[in-house]
């Protein structure tokens, strides 16, 4: 047991930190939103990351990656969060589409797509979720019918980040409507510039549009653009989802530590009943509790990492992180608004703490327990896969 970096790890961490410090866009702001005004900056940043050799950190070297170890990937994600570097534009391509193509693609497919993913020349999005399906992915209804050399795709997807700027989409579609739910699904690589693809931004309650709806009307997809076999898409999608989390837990924990630090700073400068909020016993209890939860995330992540490194099999601790983070982050947002009193009702003003930043964070946090697995689904997963309880159905 040793929580310190080894000499090699420390050296790698320094490399990452130095490079980020020297290269990250000035005035960079962390956060996931790819708003119109930021796309140009993010493209440039993606290219820079690639040139620096940081794109596809965990990809095998033969496919242009760095072949970094798991722990190096963790260190990178921690330092990335700490530097508050802007989001990686081609995150779906590098984190999900690429690894799936590496695992299941033909040589031609690997040759065609992988380089351009890493360079950011082609941006990817993910067409899994559907309006009627939600947490029940197997209920998807988008159809792909073979017609000559093509699939003809019809249907609707939702909650698609980046769709408005994406060049390609990893799309799940039903190719055999008569088969049971999880059979009869195929995994297609769809050119977003094809006729019949329409993207509409989906505005959130924060006012931002991070997500999109995608409509597919008689979209023609060449037969070669299938990954794996026809009707074998479910199995392949599992590879993608396995990569969805990646080192996200570490990034979230580091980010949560930083945000808690900012919360403490605000509690020091905000007056409540005439004295700094940080001196209020109730505020102190709640901040302390959040500290304990955020540290639990970080430490649970380490345990999961050690288990994977020792046994190759992820331990139960990792699956707990997202659940803990969502619920803690929501509570932090609530607390920070309460600390401010009526100033917590201002979306931006000199009267609001940090110019209304916390109001945005609070609103945004409401989606935490819904996106990337609702808290209900996560508890189902923990109950069934970790505790071995019978299925709730």
């Amino acid at each position, binding site marked *: 047991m040793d929580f310190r970096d080894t000499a090699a790890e420390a050296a790698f961490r320094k490399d990452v930190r130095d490079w980020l410090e020297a290269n990250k866009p000035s005035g960079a702001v962390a956060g996931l939103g790819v708003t119109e005004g930021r796309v140009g900056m993010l493209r440039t940043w993606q290219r820079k990351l690639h040139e620096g050799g940081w794109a596809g950190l965990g990809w095998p070297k033969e496919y242009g990656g760095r072949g970094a170890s798991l722990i190096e990937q963790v260190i990178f994600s921690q330092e990335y969060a700490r530097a508050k570097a802007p989001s990686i534009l081609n995150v779906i391509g590098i984190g999900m589409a690429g690894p799936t193509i590496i695992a299941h693609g033909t040589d031609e497919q690997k040759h065609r797509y992988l380089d351009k993913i890493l360079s950011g020349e082609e941006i990817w999005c993910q067409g899994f*979720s559907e*309006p009627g399906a*939600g*947490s*029940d992915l197997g*209920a998807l209804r988008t159809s792909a019918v073979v017609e000559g050399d093509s699939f003809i795709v019809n249907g609707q997807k*939702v*909650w698609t980040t980046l769709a408005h700027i994406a060049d390609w989409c990893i799309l799940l579609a039903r190719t055999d409507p008569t088969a049971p739910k999880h059979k009869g699904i195929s995994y297609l690589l769809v050119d977003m510039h094809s006729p019949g693809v329409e993207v509409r931004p*989906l*505005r*959130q*309650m924060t*006012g931002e549009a991070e997500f999109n709806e995608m409509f597919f009307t008689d979209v023609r997809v060449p037969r070669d653009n299938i990954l794996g076999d026809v009707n074998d898409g479910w199995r392949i999608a599992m590879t993608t989802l396995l990569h969805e989390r990646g080192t996200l837990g570490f990034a979230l924990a580091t980010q949560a530590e930083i945000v808690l630090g900012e919360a403490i700073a605000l509690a020091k400068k905000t*007056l*409540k*009943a*005439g004295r700094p909020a940080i001196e209020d016993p*109730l505020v102190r209890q709640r901040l302390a509790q959040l500290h304990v939860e955020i540290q639990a995330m970080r430490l649970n992540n380490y345990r999961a990492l050690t288990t994977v490194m020792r046994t190759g099999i992820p331990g139960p601790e990792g699956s707990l992180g997202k659940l803990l983070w969502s619920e803690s982050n*929501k509570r932090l947002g*609530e607390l920070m*608004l*309460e600390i*401010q*009193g*009526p*100033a*917590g*009702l*201002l*979306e*931006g*003003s000199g*009267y609001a703490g940090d110019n*209304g930043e916390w*109001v945005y964070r609070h*609103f945004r946090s*409401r*989606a935490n*327990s*819904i*996106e990337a697995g*609702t*808290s*209900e689904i996560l*508890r*189902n997963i923990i109950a069934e896969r970790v505790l071995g309880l019978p299925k*709730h*159905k």
Partner: protein
Amino acid sequence: MDFGFTEEQELLRKSAREVLAERSTPAVARAVMESETGFDESLWKTIAELGWCGVAIPEAEGGLGLGWVEQAVLVEETGRAVLPAPYLSTVGLALPVVLLAEPGEMRSRLLQGIASGEMRVALALTEEDGEWFAPLKAAATKSVNGYTIEGRKVFVADAHVAHELLVVARLDDDFAVFAVPAADTAITPLPTLDRTRRLSEVRLDGVTVGSERLIASGKSLGWRPADRTALVIAAEQTGVAQRVLEMSVQYAKEREQFGKPIGSFQAISHKLADMLLLTESARSHVYYAAWAIDEGTPDASLAAASARVAGIEAGRFATAEAIQVHGGIGFTYEHDLHLFYRRAKWDELYYGDATVWRERVAELIAAT
């Protein structure tokens, strides 16, 4: 012993619900949100003509001469409809102060103005520090023609559409309430998360008002206006909670996942049961407190503070969990839930949060 509404009260609720269903739709709220002033003149006229502003005002002053139970009924309904009008600020924040002011011509003018709907009045209490029940910086000094007030008020609800402001300021070793024409002050709306109920900054740079405009002193008011304000906000929170509960139950019956309505999963249905529990509890507290205030019972303050706490819990839990029950769609701007969420958050943080009011409850129960 009877916890029932009279036929007249039921009728009031029914007619309010009907009017609001037509005139205060989410679409109207969105239009008001997006508008520059955040104010819909014709909607206000409707409210005024129905006499809703004068429900708790004596008939002699042009009101309907009913009480706080009726006022709570109306506000529960306006909450249910996220009414985008400066109604709560008028009847919930300003009216209690005016009603409890010293009898006199100014009080009558204000009451009659409010009752007719021709006068919108805002309460200018808090300052930069956002504290509700704390020492003030704004100060009034006796001058030849009356009083001169100097100070800056912040977080004043609906000030930008008010005719009169009730400015609370230090005067000698007490505080006092002055009715100040809004036009005599400098009002700057602030970007508020519930854009149908905007907060403003109000500057008073040596505004002089006549002596008759000093309408109440701190010593005579005490907590009594606060009891009424707490009650009214709690009534609104109950209405908000009720509406999102209904939306969520409806959705849980219709929406299917894994081949079954999501309302058949305990993770959802037990959440909804807890929403019901909190909403019904808030409602019980609200009407008991309204009755206690009307009757002037010794526990009226405790009842009002308890209602406020129960209202906050219901509003907060119900709107947050309604989003969770709805999933992604509940987080979109197009879905109406966020209108209710914003309103509930406003109600939670405005006029003292749950901690402040629990402390008030504690003070009252520990004293006995």
